[in-house]
């Protein structure tokens, strides 16, 4: 069992956001909102897998910036 490190996830997403070309002010707001919305969407589940979490965050991020969501979803499948 592992716990979600939201600070680490936020930091990683901010790096991705800057690389994708999103201004840091905007990215700070919607990254935190996306993570909190994703977590509240999963709140009623008793077991949450890494894939569930990734899918939920991807879905939320896609509303704000599809490229950032795409990079978040696919960064482990580039090579």
């Amino acid at each position, binding site marked *: 069992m592992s716990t979600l490190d939201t600070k680490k996830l936020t930091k990683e997403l*901010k*790096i*991705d*956001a*800057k*690389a*994708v*070309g999103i201004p840091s002010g905007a990215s700070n707001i919607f990254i935190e909102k996306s993570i909190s919305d994703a977590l509240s969407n999963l709140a009623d589940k008793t077991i949450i897998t890494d894939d569930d979490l990734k899918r939920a965050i991807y879905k939320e991020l896609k509303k704000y910036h*599809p*490229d*950032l969501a*795409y*990079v978040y979803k*696919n*960064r*482990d*499948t*580039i*090579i």
Partner: protein
Amino acid sequence: MQPPLCYNLNMNVFTSVGILILTMLIMAFLQLSTGIFLLFFHYCHGKYSRRKCSDMGLFYIIGVELCVALIFLSTYFSLNALYFATSNFDDTFLIWFIAGILAALAIVIFFCYYHKGKNTKLFISRRLASLLNEKAKNAKTRSDAFTLGFISTIPELFFTIPIYIVAAIETMQIGDTPIVRSLLVILFILSAVTPIIAAHMSMDFGYNLANIEKTRIRNKNFTRAFVSLLYLIIAILIITFKVIK
């Protein structure tokens, strides 16, 4: 002085040039160094200033170039020594062996180079992929970038060693003066970094990892089929001009 003969055949200069161009195309189309560079440059843009990214990107390219140059030149000089050391060296077995390997690699590349699915996952083990991913993410200095570039060509040696051998033989065949040979060597080395330079420029001009990755996925099947075909064509050319002369 006669250049060291590699194929005892009537393979003319044009065929050798053609084969050399095909080997350069293969070097340009193989994806591992480019994939690692994209990740590395993406993380770099996310952490550092544009100037530092360009600097580190340059060192990555130098790392790839140096590794390709070392492997190519060591192959070249080993073969040169082999041909000089044995005056009546019968290379029939060597040629058949290389042609067979190339044909086998054509099949392997077509079926195994990429993983299935909508991604550009390559043939390397997932453990190695995550290690390279981590290295790309944590590169902080020029030397990190250089080392990453240097090691990025090594996992692909399984596919590239026969290409280095063929290119070295063709270079010996074509270039009868040191200048021509040096030019061919430089061209071969540059061909390996052409896609990385293109990726570097694309990201400098405002394309991001998502855009480039979508293009790579769209062209995945073409890349696989094209590289496989190139391997096959080289194998056929070698067999044709060695056996049916």
